[in-house]
């Protein structure tokens, strides 16, 4: 082995050893790297109940209601399996819509309602013009009706 090959082997070895240790560390911190919990995880008591944490999912269709003062909102976050009721006072981001992604930060009270002090919109990776989106929606509706028939 020439010295420079030896040197190269040492470099390759150290980088791979480092990569392995990083993988192990990230695995160990898996739960801390999660930005939000799904309603199912909350139902399974995997979320830190009693402390402030984030819940993420879709805003349930037809669940958004404004109460009293007009700045307090009630809605539900769902992952299609479990549902969490959320109460939030403040300004909602532009992309907040029923049926779209959302991440809310707050605490679960004893009554099982999630009191959020921050609501963020999470959108998906699809980019298309409105006409294409409308066409897709039409197609989905048509498919739904053909299934029920």
């Amino acid at each position: 082995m020439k010295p420079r090959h030896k040197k190269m082997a040492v470099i390759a070895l150290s980088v791979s050893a480092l990569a392995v240790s990083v993988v192990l560390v990230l695995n160990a911190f898996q739960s801390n790297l999660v930005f939000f919990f799904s309603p199912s995880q909350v139902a399974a008591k995997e979320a830190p109940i009693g402390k402030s944490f984030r819940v993420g999912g879709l805003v349930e269709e037809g669940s958004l209601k404004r109460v009293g003062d007009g700045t307090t909102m009630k809605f539900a976050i769902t992952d299609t399996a479990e549902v969490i009721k959320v109460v939030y006072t403040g300004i909602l981001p532009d992309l907040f819509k029923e049926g779209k992604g959302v991440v809310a930060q707050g605490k679960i009270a004893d009554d099982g309602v999630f009191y959020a002090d921050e609501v963020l919109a999470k959108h998906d990776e699809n980019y298309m013009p409105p006409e294409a989106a409308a066409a897709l929606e039409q197609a989905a509706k048509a498919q739904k009706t053909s299934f029920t028939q």
Partner: protein
Amino acid sequence: MTINWFKYASPASFYFLAGRMVPYFATLAIIFLVVGLYIGFFVAPTDFQQGEAYRIIFIHVPAAWMSMFLYVIMAFWAGVGLAFNTRLSSMVASAIAPTGAMFAFLALWTGAWWGKPMWGTWWVWDARLTSELILFFLYIGFMSLQAAIDDPKRADKAGAVIALVGVVNVPIIYFSVQWWNTLHQGASVSLVQSPKMATAMLSGMLIMTLAAWMYSIVMILTRTRLIILERERHTAWVSELKEGVLE
């Protein structure tokens, strides 16, 4: 005919070769930039959920890609320099860092500007954003470490260690949106799936990426030439260059 590649590993011949290449890449950079921006602003349609705000992707995505890609290239050349003691490789690595840092900063900054109206926040500590911030700090760390050491040979070695250690961060950035729940959305474009974007949007983004590539090549070649001049200032060919003997 075989090309003697080792000839261009000598800083002196690379200096002249790079000087001849710069104008071509600069021309390409300008062409791609003009075409890409035109498509981005006038051809690509409005997005169905984000409206006009999505147009940030024409800068944001190329910048984020370049910041990751340049880091890998920088680590590669720094590693080659460390293993084979080739001076030019280390100089190229040092020349890449500022451009990479600029792109990392641009990705973070445009992301924050877009995040406020779209997500409702400038910044969150999710895995994608945090790992990209670490990438920016790695670039800054590489540059400050090299700047802090006077002896170029030792500076190259120390920088190479940082560059190689930091390279594990790049796959973390890329896969963060798959491995963990993040606020940042998943990849719209990947090698294994068909793109989840309208064609006009995608072509604008890819042309802007080519522009970012060409710009990076121009900047890196130019900066490498400056580093060569600085480090070889005591050699005969640089003095000849100064006196106008060499062209």
